């Protein structure tokens, strides 16, 4: 199952984290060791065991459909890396040739 630096690069791409070749080399054996350790969960014969995603058995929680004040625009934008015309300013979304 050995995880290669190339596999880690693929995962990092999915997770939107740029990693240097040195980081990939360092991370691959560490992640491999962790995966080997956590694979212990497969020892449990659990075909008929229901999964638990949450410690409390909860139904969806809804509030009354009443308008309440929302966060002021200035407050929401105050922590933004860049803002313009009352909006978040973001880098271009499309590629050069798009």
């Amino acid at each position, binding site marked *: 199952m050995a995880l290669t630096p190339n596999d880690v690069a693929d995962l990092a791409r*999915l997770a939107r984290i*740029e990693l240097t070749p040195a980081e990939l080399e360092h991370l691959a054996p560490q992640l491999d060791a962790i*995966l080997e350790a956590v*694979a212990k969960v497969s020892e*449990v014969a659990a075909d008929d065991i229901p999964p638990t*995603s949450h410690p409390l058995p909860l139904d969806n929680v809804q509030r009354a459909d009443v308008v309440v004040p929302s966060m002021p625009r200035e*407050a929401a934008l*105050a922590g933004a890396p860049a803002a313009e015309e009352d909006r*978040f300013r973001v880098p271009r979304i*499309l590629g050069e040739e798009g």
Partner: protein
Amino acid sequence: MSTSSTDLTRRTAADLATAIASGETSSVEVVQAHLDRMAAVEPAVHAFLHVDGERALAAAARVDADRAEGRALGPLAGVPVALKDVLTQAGAPTTCGSKVLEGWVPPYDATVTRRMLDAGLVILGKTNLDEFAMGSSTENSAYGPTHNPWDLDRIPGGSGGGSAAAVAAYEAPLAIGTDTGGSIRQPASVTGTVGIKPTYGGTSRYGLVALASSLDQPGPCARTVLDAALLHQVIAGHDPRDSTSIDAPVPDVVGAARSGDVRGMRIGVVRELGGEGYAPGVEQRFHEAVETLAGLGAEVVEVSCPNFSYALPAYYLVLPSEASSNLAKFDGMRFGLRAGDDGSHSAEEVMGLTREAGFGAEVKRRIILGTYALSSGYYDAYYGQAQKVRTLVSRDFEAAFAQVDVLVSPSTPTTAFRLGEKVDDPLAMYLNDLCTIPSNLAGNASASFPVGLAPEDGLPVGLQVMAPPLADDRLYRVGAALERALEERWGAPLLAQAPELAVHEGGVAK
């Protein structure tokens, strides 16, 4: 009556609240004494990432004015508290110990924060933690580690090492922590303090920056059992802003802490949480404490929880999976750091560069691990199987609680290790949470109480108590019984045996 500022920082929160309410001292004096203490010991301990003395003194002055005008004060009014920097407080930076949120000032208060402010508690500042609460030593903080007041070369535990160290170093009588896999209990254990993880849903997660939403739970840190209970009472209870908040009365934690009566209580020692891998001094102090409880009238039996050995691997699948999803919001678009936005990079490239620059090694490790565990082809074998183990761990608890009122174990397998010892060995680091993780997976209430020093290294040992969901009061009953009996034996609180910290010269906070 004159009270030196040193005396004020040594007093319990309950005692300080009484002294403030009676006029023996003022909240301003109490807060100033703690700011002075911080100035003296912070250079060595580094428990705080942010302190706003001016704001704290202004809040203290308001409590004093309210008292002067005869307004009703809450049971902890005027008492200082430290807040783990993963919960928001409007107007103060929330970094989560990460470069990705450096300088971010949240526009709102967490519910826990709001309840403390409404109760008249005075927030001194924000405490250090492992980045996004991922770690067991605070060494993963982007702003440098916190040092254990018992031995400055050792870790204070994590992720809430800052909150535990602040309390142990008399920088604050109370602090708030958050516990996802032991981040309140393990730091409490290694610093000789009290830490409680309430029943999942017992305290609100609104305004808590999520690590793993199905595991995270805020709770109190203190030097005494009663102080923890008083803070628990303030922060707990239903919050409509958290969909997983329990709509039921808060258990009578304060009454239980005052009682400390364990006569007739059935206490189960978990067979699987001991033996190989546990330090001899940890086992010794743990078993002595269990004998003490038996001597106080509790009925002690051994209980087996066979699936607990699968809890740690299941946790390290569930947690990274939830974390990889929760931390997707740090994309450099709406808040926090943005890297590489020079006009040549697309939004997607900027996201990758921002997360590369903003996240530390452990956060990257866990996000990538979670991405792997959730990817198609591996989902059933990893995440799916971990969720089934979670069911089995809960069933072990249910079977155990059919026989006993509470379960006990050591809080951690070892005492505080040296800074740097395990920093690049993730698996060794993960083992610190071996005993604490089952309660996070099952969501039940759990706590760590100091039970002495390990003879081999003179460092604190903690005993973990686990109670059924919504039976948080039982934790306090056991904790108070132990505290009373052990302090009678020691002649003083355990922390009285900690070495005096060297005081930094010339440090007087304003």
